[in-house]
């Protein structure tokens, strides 16, 4: 009887600790929140008004490179949206909820996103050889 009671008590303690740890885990910032923090830092930058789109991008990009690993989902999302200024915020938010299951609200990113863009080296409205419209594609 005593053994059973002790065992139950141990299980109860282990369960409580597990719940506490899970609780702590939930409060931890996701990597998507960290990217948002970098936009907060950009917004607070004393020289923000004088920074070009590219300088703003470099500022955030440097912080992302320092804080996240290339294998991180938020890192990859940030990089793939480097020139997609118009839809960056909505896609970043959508990706956050898809990956983490939790919504993201990042007012600084929403405000600044259209003014943050990777330096453009090449630009074209024509399709490259590895992309074809339906009417030009081959369907053997």
């Amino acid at each position, binding site marked *: 009887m005593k053994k059973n009671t002790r065992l139950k008590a141990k299980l109860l303690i282990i369960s409580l600790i597990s719940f506490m740890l899970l609780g702590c885990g939930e409060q931890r910032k996701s990597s998507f929140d960290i990217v948002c923090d970098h936009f907060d830092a950009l917004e607070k930058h004393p020289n923000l008004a004088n920074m070009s789109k590219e300088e703003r991008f470099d500022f955030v990009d440097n912080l992302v490179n320092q804080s996240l690993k290339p*294998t991180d*989902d938020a890192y*990859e*999302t940030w990089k*793939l*949206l*480097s*020139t*997609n200024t*118009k*839809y960056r915020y*909505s*896609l970043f938010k*959508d*990706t956050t909820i*898809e*990956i983490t299951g939790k919504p993201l609200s990042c007012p600084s990113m929403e405000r600044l996103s259209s003014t943050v863009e*990777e330096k*453009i*080296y*090449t*630009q*074209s*409205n*024509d*399709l*490259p*050889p*590895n*992309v*074809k*419209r*339906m009417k030009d*594609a*081959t*369907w*053997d």
Partner: protein
Amino acid sequence: MSQFIERNFNQIQTVNGTIAAIGLEKVGQKVAGNLVTPAVWALNYAAKDITPGEIDLAIYGSSFINGPAGIIMSLLKAVIDDDIGKKVTVIREKQDPQYRNYIFPVQNYSLSAPFIAAQNIARDGGTAWKDPNGQWVFITDSRGVLVPDYEPKDAIDIMKPIYPFSEKNGKFDFCRRTCR
């Protein structure tokens, strides 16, 4: 090891609902991408004439898998591949016959989570979409070229480049679902 897998191979390949049971519904997230060993490739090749995919080779190259964990992972990989294959077959059957052979799971395109892989495809100039069965797929033409303006049938989510097309640094501007 290979005998164990071989004995269970048919069962593993045909078990329905196993993915959900083991909590890996979000196939393509990095954990799922790591599920492979050469033993399974060999069996797949012997049984179905399937050669290792890009994902398999990338993981093998990273020497991620070894020992008993590798056995479990490889079994899961087989189940997952089978689950994806079934879903993609359903999606193909909804599209016009001439396009069916050129529709592939986004897991074939990148190691990323499917939602991110779909964005990678749109950024590179292709159309990716999600079927009501939860699987993200994309289309190429018969020469493997990405297509930016395919209109999928029965899609609940779409990623594609914005028209008129704008490519910067090799990346297309793209958006989700209702873009024009």
